[in-house]
């Protein structure tokens, strides 16, 4: 069977693939969160939990030739674009075997061989970088696209306007994907963001679309339109995917915040709209998979998580006698 939507049919295999990709991010990040709380991870970690449908919806339609730029909340994009979980985990653990040999950490995981320009510690920085990568893709003329994932907080950086302007003028194959997760760090969006973010494309004449970021199928279809638009040389799109950050801005926040910035009721409401159980129900209700299929995927991912953590824990730290000053100029 397949799920029929306006213009896409997804096979059982595809649907299970989406489920697997989302659940893989979820379980790896849950482990990262646990390890951070246990003190096994040296730096800050910002989790993507609750937003997985956005990264998977877009990245499942990209190849290694397409570029993505991500954020401080970037593990999900790294994994969705094909990043290796062992290399990710070892990097977050600060080990020599990490993706960046322990030089970058959680906020800087990158794998250029897979088109992952990387997570970024500066809010909004990926917007300009991806605009440049999209310019490169345009010059290459092979139909590659660039996608910047960023939050609603980043949408308030001035670079958003600058990038939309030049991307429209140059008809760049770029998609600006704003994952509106409700919070700019610890400030609710309503207190820092005027109007609708998606509407900010209008004065520039950029294609734009708002989508339910917790609905993988909706995101996938929206992404397909934007990617097709970009590959065809029709220029940029601004997508606002409405979602919710189920975890804190940073895992350690409970240890230093003196008060709450959101209600338990609000969090509960969004837990009820968690994209992954909703997708599981959809797949089962449509008869595209059995609970046993989902359980099998769960077990496979559990094994991957264990393997990644064992790899990280078993890896040495980089040796300060030989590393630490190597890569500034290479």
């Amino acid at each position, binding site marked *: 069977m397949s799920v029929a939507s306006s213009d896409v049919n997804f096979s059982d295999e595809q649907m299970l693939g989406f489920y697997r990709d989302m659940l893989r991010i979820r379980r790896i990040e849950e482990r990262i969160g646990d390890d951070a709380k246990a003190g096994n991870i040296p730096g800050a970690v910002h989790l993507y939990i609750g937003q997985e449908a956005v990264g998977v919806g877009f990245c499942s339609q990209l190849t290694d030739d397409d570029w993505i*730029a991500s954020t401080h909340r970037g593990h999900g994009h790294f994994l969705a674009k094909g990043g290796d979980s062992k290399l990710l985990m070892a990097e977050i653990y600060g080990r020599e075997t990490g993706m960046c040999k322990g030089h970058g950490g959680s906020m800087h995981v990158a794998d250029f061989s897979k088109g992952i320009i990387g997570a970024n510690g500066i809010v909004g920085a990926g917007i*300009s970088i991806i605009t440049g990568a999209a310019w490169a893709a*345009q010059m290459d003329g092979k139909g590659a696209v660039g996608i910047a994932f960023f939050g609603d907080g980043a949408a308030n950086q001035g670079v958003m306007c600058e990038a939309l302007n030049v991307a429209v003028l140059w008809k760049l194959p770029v998609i600006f994907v704003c994952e509106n997760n409700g919070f700019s760090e610890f400030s609710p969006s309503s207190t820092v963001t005027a109007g609708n973010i998606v509407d900010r494309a209008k004065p520039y004449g950029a294609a734009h679309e708002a989508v339910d970021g917790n609905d993988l199928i909706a995101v996938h279809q929206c992404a397909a339109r934007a990617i097709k638009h970009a590959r065809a040389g029709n220029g940029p799109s601004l997508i606002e995917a409405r979602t919710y950050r189920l975890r804190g801005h940073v895992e350690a926040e409970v240890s230093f915040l003196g008060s709450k910035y959101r209600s338990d009721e609000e969090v509960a409401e969004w837990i009820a709209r968690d994209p992954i159980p909703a997708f599981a129900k959809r797949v089962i209700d449509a008869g595209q998979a059995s609970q046993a299929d989902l359980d099998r995927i769960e077990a496979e991912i559990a094994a991957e998580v264990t393997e990644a953590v064992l790899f990280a824990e078993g890896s040495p730290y980089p040796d300060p006698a030989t590393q630490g000053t190597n890569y500034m100029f290479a």
Partner: protein
Amino acid sequence: MAKKRMIQAINEALDGEMARDPKVVVFGEDVEISLFGDTRGLKDKHGAHRVRNMPISETVMSGMAVGAAAAGYKVVCHMMFGNFMYTGFDSIANQASKLRYMTAGQIALPIVYMGVFGGGRSAAAQHSDAMHPMIMNLGGIKVALPATPADAMGLLRSAIHDPNPVMFLQAAGRGGEQGEVPEGDHVIELGKASTVQEGDDVTVVAIGAMVRPAMRAAQELARAGIGVDLIDPRTVVPLDSEMILDSVRKTGRLVVVDEARDMCSAASHIAAICADQCFDALKAPIRRVTVPDVALPYSPPLEKALLPNVASISKAVRRLLGKAAEEGA
């Protein structure tokens, strides 16, 4: 050899590199018409897709350079005035300077950020900074400051070839200065200083636009029997500290001339290196001739009084040699 203007040498370096390597692209504000003349004519020769005017949007521009370089291009990003880099500083300071390091050298990041720098033209405080010291302190970005047309050509070619971001700072208002430029693919390795003239009494290190007044001062001092070993570092990252140290070990005296504000200037860094590594050779304190820690003013006499010049360089040298009184300085 042929006599060329500084701006012509830069233009020919860009033209030559664009012709040699289709991955070299130039973009920035008004690069098509070219305010300074350094990018003039490139669009007609190399195509509109490789020479692109940008909106006045330094924030996205400096970051686009990072993205395009990460995606395989050799990017010349023309920021026009060096001061405008501050508007786009995140992508220079947080991205370009750190991306190779943070990702353990996964990629090359060949970017040349170009701009003019320095004072002397009544351009006032927001168009006259010498910003090389703050770039030096970033790490991860090389900094070239050519003082002659030949060096401009050779350093720019090397900067474009380099897999790292390079800040190429041309002394503002000096584009018309002429000099002999070697024929062919003239390249100067980044990190190699040049000895402008040799002398035994005092080492003068002069940076960028300061080389010319330092040469005049050296000529004047020669008439008074003072031999100046004049060194132009040409790049301050990497810094050819060996050549400077060798010279100071020979002369025992050091004057550093830098158009930057004194605090944490290139001059103070060079002074620190020499104090650290050849203290025993020093016969006198190290002197810095720099700009006081103020913004540069507009009015010509005010600006002139603050910038290093032939007289202030000569005076610093004479004082070092204990000849201040007899020379009436």
